[in-house]
């Protein structure tokens, strides 16, 4: 079966998009799926360092597009999971080196080689973003429960709607359950109410995400981490499984949570 092409976008930078791509890539590959991650941020590549593959780069996305290498030569195999591969962005070129047509052709070739192609879109809503969504069958929008990130996510969703694309799905990243309960952070319900698109992932704030990035080993490798578990849940939902979200990010009081826990026993 040809691959599903998934673009991961956000509008605002710094919401954890690249980390999300790396972790969903790891989580999908751990299930045995063949996954190719593409860094779509020409000139500002980062997916390679988050995945710990920065020392293995010989060719990049622009080399493939401009015919300096074959597609397979630019695909870097992950150190830990052979099913996971990366096509890095060019660091010394500008975003005009790639067009929407180039991305559609590239992903067309990759569809025969993988089960999932994940494209890390650059921040913003300009050329790089348009390139990332052009070949995508699905778009995942990443946001933080924070005013500017939600506003920019809404802008991205509006552009996707205007393009007549299939409804995107939302990932709420860096949710702090304690702050939500204190009423000092937007809850998942708040964000969903504002953006009105389906939710595919709720990722808690977790210091192990940073540690994983530091080591070049995404947190989805760690079975005991809460964020790693959240990324693995996203991968399962992406594969069509129905996975419940739990109570993370809900503004239920201590007593209500206690009561609902007792009821479900």
């Amino acid at each position: 079966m040809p691959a599903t092409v998934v673009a991961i976008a956000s509008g605002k930078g710094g919401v954890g998009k690249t980390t999300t791509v790396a972790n969903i890539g790891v989580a999908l590959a751990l299930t045995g799926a063949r996954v190719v991650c593409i860094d779509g941020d020409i000139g500002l590549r980062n997916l390679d360092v988050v995945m710990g593959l920065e020392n293995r780069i010989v060719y990049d996305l622009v080399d493939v597009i401009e015919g300096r290498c074959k597609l397979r030569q630019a695909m870097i195999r992950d150190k830990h999971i052979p099913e996971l591969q990366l096509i890095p962005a060019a660091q010394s070129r500008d975003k005009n080196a790639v067009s929407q047509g180039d991305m559609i052709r590239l992903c067309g070739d990759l569809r025969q080689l993988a089960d999932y192609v994940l494209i890390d879109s650059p921040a913003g809503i300009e050329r790089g973003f348009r390139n990332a969504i052009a070949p995508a069958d699905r778009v995942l929008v990443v946001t933080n429960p924070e005013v500017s990130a939600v506003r920019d996510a809404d802008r991205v969703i509006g552009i996707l709607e205007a393009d007549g694309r299939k409804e995107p799905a939302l990932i709420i990243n860096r949710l702090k359950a304690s702050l939500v309960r204190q009423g000092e952070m937007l809850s998942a319900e708040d964000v969903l109410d504002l953006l009105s698109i389906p939710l595919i992932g709720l990722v808690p704030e977790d210091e192990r995400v940073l540690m994983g990035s530091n080591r070049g080993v995404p947190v989805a490798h760690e079975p005991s981490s809460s964020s790693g578990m959240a990324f693995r849940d996203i991968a399962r939902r992406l594969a069509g499984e129905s996975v419940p979200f739990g109570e993370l990010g809900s503004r239920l009081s201590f007593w209500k949570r206690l009561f609902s826990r007792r009821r479900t026993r």
Partner: protein
Amino acid sequence: MSIVRRHRTSAPHAKERLASALAQDRTGISTAELALLRADVLEAVGRYFVVGRRGARVLVLKDGRKQRFVAEFTVSRAKARRRNL
């Protein structure tokens, strides 16, 4: 004055501000333009009805990803119609 002042948490404030900003972004209408629209609608309705002291509330409400324009008036009675219309 109460010694313990009731503290309003920040998340509801963030949600209100976002709802307003998103309505403006999605419709492309600013707060100033909305005020002009309110005055225009009030004037138009005022030609037919006696509008109550509370006047009009003009709101852009969220309806999923669509926006609903709602104008609400307190009216006491219709104005006398001119016969030569």
